[in-house]
């Protein structure tokens, strides 16, 4: 996509990723600094608090593992067993090696984790993108996993929830990444025709080809406070218009104001909000 690389912030609190980014900003392994208010926080306290800064309310970026812990009932998550790998269509040197290193480092097999789980006993298909893995970028594997999840929701007559976090389409796979936008959007059309509920949750950051496909197509679109969301990256826009961007531009609140998000939801209330929405939509999709 035409986006510039979303700047990695120091908000990563997940053990592995935290070490990788701005090592010097993190005094000791057990501590992390809030990028927003600069407060030094004890990691355990932060995790207890849903990875929200107790001082300023800043929502730290979340790994897919922690996200699932926060949203899905204990021991109910069953990950889809999809053994798919990229075929490196542009034959980029080191790309496969880079993926292997990341897999080892993050314990993830790609930038999205998907499966079936329960939210207060309500069964859903859930896909959670993870910005620790190549900034959540969408190549063929991510596109395939998202599409598979949507098709599985149709097959099992379940609602689907997708947590988006992505810098956009993955450059290393070129045009093949671009085509994942068409593929995932077409799958959403099928889901709509089947009558299943789709809730899209936009988290920091959601950009480029993900914004311009399934992320923007939810029946209901939620967003986390202060999440940065847009199509073009801020740097590209700034270059194009030649002036500074207005305060609050491309935040979740900005999208709410402009009519592209249904509701901004604090992470602490996310699970209950999703549950209520599942109940309020129940008859429609079970019919």
């Amino acid at each position: 996509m035409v986006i510039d690389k979303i700047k990695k912030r120091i908000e990563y609190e997940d053990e592995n990723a935290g070490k990788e980014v701005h090592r010097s900003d993190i005094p000791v392994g057990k501590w992390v600094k809030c990028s927003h208010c600069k407060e030094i926080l004890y990691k355990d306290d932060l995790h207890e608090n849903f990875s929200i800064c107790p001082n300023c309310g800043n929502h730290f970026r979340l790994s897919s593992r922690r996200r699932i812990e926060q949203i899905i009932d204990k021991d109910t998550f069953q990950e889809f067993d999809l053994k798919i790998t990229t075929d490196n269509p542009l034959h980029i040197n080191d790309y496969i090696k880079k993926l292997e290193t990341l897999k080892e480092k993050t314990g993830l097999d790609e930038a999205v984790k998907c499966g079936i789980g329960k939210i207060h006993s309500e069964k859903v298909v859930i896909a959670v993108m993870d910005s620790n893995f190549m900034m959540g970028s969408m190549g063929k594997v991510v596109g395939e996993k998202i599409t598979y999840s949507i098709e599985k929701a149709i097959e099992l007559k379940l609602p689907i929830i997708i947590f988006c976090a992505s810098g956009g389409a993955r450059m290393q796979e070129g045009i093949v990444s671009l085509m994942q936008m068409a593929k995932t959007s077409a799958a959403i059309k099928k889901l709509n025709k089947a009558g299943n509920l789709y809730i899209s949750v936009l988290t920091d950051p959601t950009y480029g080809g993900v914004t311009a496909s399934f992320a923007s197509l939810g029946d209901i679109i939620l967003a986390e406070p202060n999440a940065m969301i847009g199509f073009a990256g801020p740097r590209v826009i700034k270059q194009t218009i030649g002036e500074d961007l207005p305060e609050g531009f491309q935040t979740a609140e900005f999208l709410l104001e402009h009519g592209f998000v249904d509701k901004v939801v604090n992470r602490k209330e996310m699970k209950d909000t999703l549950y209520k929405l599942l109940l309020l939509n129940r008859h429609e999709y079970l019919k």
Partner: protein
Amino acid sequence: MPKLTAWERVKIAREPDRPTALDYIENIFDEFMELHGDRYFKDDKSIVCGLGNIGKQNYTIVAEQKGRNTKENIERNFGMPNPEAYRKALRFMKQAEKFNRPVITFIDTKGAYPGLGAEERGQGEAIARNLMEMSDLKVPIIVIVIGEGSSGGALAIGVGDKVLMLENAVYSILSPEGYASILWKDSSRAEEAAEKMKLTAKDLLDLGIIDEVLKEPNGNAKSDIPKMSETIKKRITALTKELQEIDVNELMENRYQKFRIM
């Protein structure tokens, strides 16, 4: 004919005198009437929409349009659509469905416009909605990449049953300059990026992203616009017949599978 490098084709695709969508449309269709506006916000001139016919067959036409001079380029925002251009395109495509007319789209853009207003009015949403609706539009869609096809801004009118490319057109995830600057932090390595990106018609045919490559007269479409138009017209006519013979449910499923396997 000498074999051109990918970068040489990028340069041809960007030539200021490269024929634009309207140059072809005037030649291909017996009649063409442009119609305007997205019915929500404005008429964005970076995408031209209208009705046309070849003999007894009517068509809905959706085309990304670059300017042919500075004045036109300003008017057409250098062929970089804002969300309202995509919404206009969708309005016309849904109308085509209502009247059972095939849709012909022409792709030629450096990308969707990265501006403040575009973001405020939901550039991402507009593109996403087109991708979704095109995947299930119940009439044949033929897509022709005539110049630069860059990013989601191109794909937003590119979900079709048949995707054709002119020999020197390019189609990619973003410009080679952008690609080089993101992957190697050095936009001056655009030429190298172009060779890597598989953005030529031949490469994309081999990758299974497009269906046909249309030969350009004398190796460059601008040398003979009527002849290039005739080539495009022949394929539009033949493919229309072919696609109209397919049962609509099968057409929908074929289109879904076409992108599903990518």
